[in-house]
């Protein structure tokens, strides 16, 4: 009897060990080739860029071992009404630490500055005959409200620098930031620098950390004067001779995304709450026949007034008149 019991126990223990192992599963379904086109038309440059690539079929997760899937030999065109421009194929050496060791292949067009409120249509004809198409309309220009004070420091002693604008298309993401443009005298040469002013500074674990805003549907920007002042102090941090610094201008830079770039950014930057575990990432594309994004943005700048007294309070020299 004891022998039978021991046998049963032995079989049971072996069985438990067998079933306690992890089982294999098939994470991959049927491979379907996809083609990807990415391009963001920008109003602040004369050179526009397009990338075209294909998906890759690997049956493991070793994405680091794949070859550059960029597609060569595509015909890429862009239309502005009846006017058409051809992109030419180009490549740049791979960057150190980049994803691929081979040169980066892309398509580019020079002397092309997209205009606000204008619609552009793009098409990439791939060597295998597949066609990727899309359109974008550059956002319209915004107009600043003139009845709101734009001076640093504010004239009304409110301690808040507030700039507001009217956006004719409200459902577009806006990325807005203040920059301080200054010269630093380095061995007798004045070198131009820009200091980006964060939204605010946050104290955490004894450190002061800058916090920069995300693009949003906002139509104004508000920054406390103390944030500006701290950014101004950081310009010369570690430099005892403050007179080396000449403040040229306070610039407000506003970039308005088109509707597709807005949606694409929203989908790629969507952040799940901590501890939420999402299995399927949001996938947004406006490329007909493939994946990727064809979007655009319009960038505008405006100078914000300042007082010489404010600049001198940091020991710096004003570079321009008030």
């Amino acid at each position, binding site marked *: 009897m004891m022998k039978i019991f021991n046998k049963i126990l032995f079989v049971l223990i072996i069985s438990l060990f067998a079933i306690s192992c*992890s089982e294999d599963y098939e994470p991959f379904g049927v*491979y379907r080739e996809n083609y*990807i086109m*990415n391009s963001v038309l920008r109003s602040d440059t004369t050179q526009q860029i397009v990338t075209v690539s294909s998906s890759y079929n690997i049956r493991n*997760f070793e994405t680091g071992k794949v070859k550059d899937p960029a597609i060569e030999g595509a015909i890429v065109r862009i239309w502005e009404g009846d006017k058409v421009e051809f992109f030419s194929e180009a490549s740049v050496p791979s960057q150190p630490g980049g994803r691929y060791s081979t040169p980066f292949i*892309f398509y580019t067009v020079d002397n092309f500055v997209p205009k606000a409120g204008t619609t552009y249509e793009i098409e990439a004809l791939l060597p295998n005959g597949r066609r990727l198409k899309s359109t974008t309309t550059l956002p319209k220009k915004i107009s600043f409200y003139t009845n709101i004070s734009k001076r640093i420091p504010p004239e009304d002693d409110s301690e808040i620098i507030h700039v507001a604008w009217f956006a004719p298309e409200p459902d577009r993401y806006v990325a807005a930031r203040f920059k301080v443009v200054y010269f630093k005298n380095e061995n007798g040469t004045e070198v131009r620098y820009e200091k980006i002013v964060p939204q605010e500074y946050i104290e*955490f674990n004894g450190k002061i950390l800058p916090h920069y805003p995300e693009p949003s549907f906002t139509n104004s920007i508000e920054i406390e004067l103390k944030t500006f002042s701290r950014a101004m102090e950081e310009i010369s941090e570690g430099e005892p001779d403050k007179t080396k610094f000449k403040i040229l201008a306070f610039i407000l830079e506003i970039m308005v995304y088109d509707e597709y770039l807005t949606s694409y950014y929203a989908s*790629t930057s969507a952040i799940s709450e901590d*501890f939420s*575990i999402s299995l399927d990432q949001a996938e947004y594309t406006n490329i007909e026949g493939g994946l990727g994004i064809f979007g655009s943005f319009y960038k505008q700048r405006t100078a914000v007034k300042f007082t010489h007294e404010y600049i001198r309070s940091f020991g710096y020299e004003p570079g321009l008149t008030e």
Partner: protein
Amino acid sequence: MIVSYVGYIKKSLRIHVEPNKITQVDIPLAPSSYELQTIEKVGQRVAESNATDISLQRITVKELEDLPKGVETDVFRSLQYLPGVQSTGDVSARYYVRGGSADQNLVLLNGVTLYNPFHALGLFSAIDPEVINSIEFYKGGYSAEFGDRISSVLKINTKDGNKNNFAAKASSSFLTGKLLLEGPLPAGSFMITGRKSYSNDILKKFLNEQTVPADFYDMSFKANFSSPNLIKGAKVTFHGFFSGDKVSNGDPFKEDFEWKNNLFGFNWFQISDSPLFLELGLSFSDFKGEVIPNFSNVKPKLNKVEDVTFKTDFTYVYDSKDEFSVGVHVKDIETKLFLENSKGAVSNVGTHGTLLSFYAKYKFLRYENLGIDIGSRINLTGLSGAGDNTGGFEPRLSFTYRIIPEIAIKGAWGIYSQELSTVTDEDEVITIFEPWLINPFYLKPTQSRHYILGVQMQPYNFLQFNVEGYYKDIFSLPLLNDNKAFSTDNDFVAGKGESYGIEFMVRLTADPVRFTASYTNAYSYKEIDNWVYYPRYDVRHSANISLEYNWGWGVSSSLVWIYSSGLPFTQLSGFYDKYFIDDIYFDGNFYHNQIPISILDDKNLGRLPDYHRLDFNISKKFDFTFFRGSIDFSIINVYDRKNLFYFDKNTGERVNMLPFLPTATVKLEI
């Protein structure tokens, strides 16, 4: 009359009964310190009465306590051992009943809706099992007195408290410490309990060794009064339940979370000289859930539900044993969901509505071998203001026909509606923020039809077989609009659902052994925009086997094996280099920000490996002169099965569910 109950001293008394009058007698029993080893059987027990109780499971506190504990005894986790009830993993106590989603389950605590019955990201039940007196769980086919949920009803009643003596119970687990006080009041009794988490270490086992900075508490009380000197034949009850959860990351660049439930109820149960029972209830149930972004990029979210309910129910019992019930339920609900709207400003997308429902039902119980419960619920007004629910008619029928004393055929059919649902992302295996919303006005109320048929056999007193088949279809199911690209697009689209299956269960109760085995074969589907897919909780085969043994001397043990075939998941069909905008000002070269990302195949066509697990529990009760207590030791996943929870779609990293996990609980009672 002789009154006896396990654990209490037997009492004999004389009762004077008048014709055509109901005589109410409250009989307090004194607790006994003796553990009964056997129960004497008297007479031949009839297999079952003619009760119309298809799909109803009654769970005793003893059964709850005998089950292996993940960390603590948990009402919701114990439901997952029942056929027809599914979970999507060890991590969550959320449950899915016969192909319905989690928000289609009504949880009633002393008759009051509890909106967030979970603690710690949904890992545990918020209802302390120490306070539970009875649990009734309807898996479908429930009768007309229940409304506004389309899948299941979990009805939990808490204890009244010790009417004879003051008593205190304290217990501690790896996660919480708790205290219960109870005792007599003039013409009544009270019970108050509180539970507080004090350690998070055990939670790491649930979330892939990730630290979960969760902190929670719950507190409940109940006070009841019944005295002929106050109102003859009346029992008045006040009860409350309060719970709060916080997840504080302690980092200004990370978000924090808060949840709160506040529930308060008043109940008046009245019997009169005639066989008419009246029950009046007034309750308030609030829920608040909040995502506090601090300086992270997570959007702020705030959800509030304010529910004021008034109920009045009348039941008349005829001499023939038939019963007629009628009731009016008024539910005033306001939901608030504060989100950042398309202009970046905070907006409230919630709404307010009043649901006025009337129900009537008749129970034919005059024949020993036949029971029929027929009735209807009529919604005179709707919550959502969609306009389609006014006059909503929800007929329901349930029957039991006993062919021979050992075999009964049972069935149920009904129409059920629901106008309150959670905003749930089906692609998330753990959803931390699931706000409740009244269905938007552009969707009709969600409706479901249940068809249930079953056979119950009890060839011997100690042996029972149950077979139940069901079919359920759901219309106007609010599903998140995955194609929403612009703020003007609707947040929800109307989907459909369908599920069917068959459940088998065998139960053997021969002291000191109790054995239960069940098997379920089930199918469930969802349809959105003519696209049919398996929901994440669709499990084709599932089985549970449990063996409990009472060794005597206060020692009992149980062994539970759970099996389910693989859950659906979306397979990958390749990879591509995706462009991510990491520089919102486009200062650099955008083409360098490309990261390999998987491309998904059709939704949920793959299946994860089978899930199975063996759990073990042993507990010992002990008595000392002035206190008694128990020690409980459990092992979850005895053979350390590597059950797959999910895999990272971009790296392939495998994340498993609970590993081999021993836990212990100590309980002391004065």
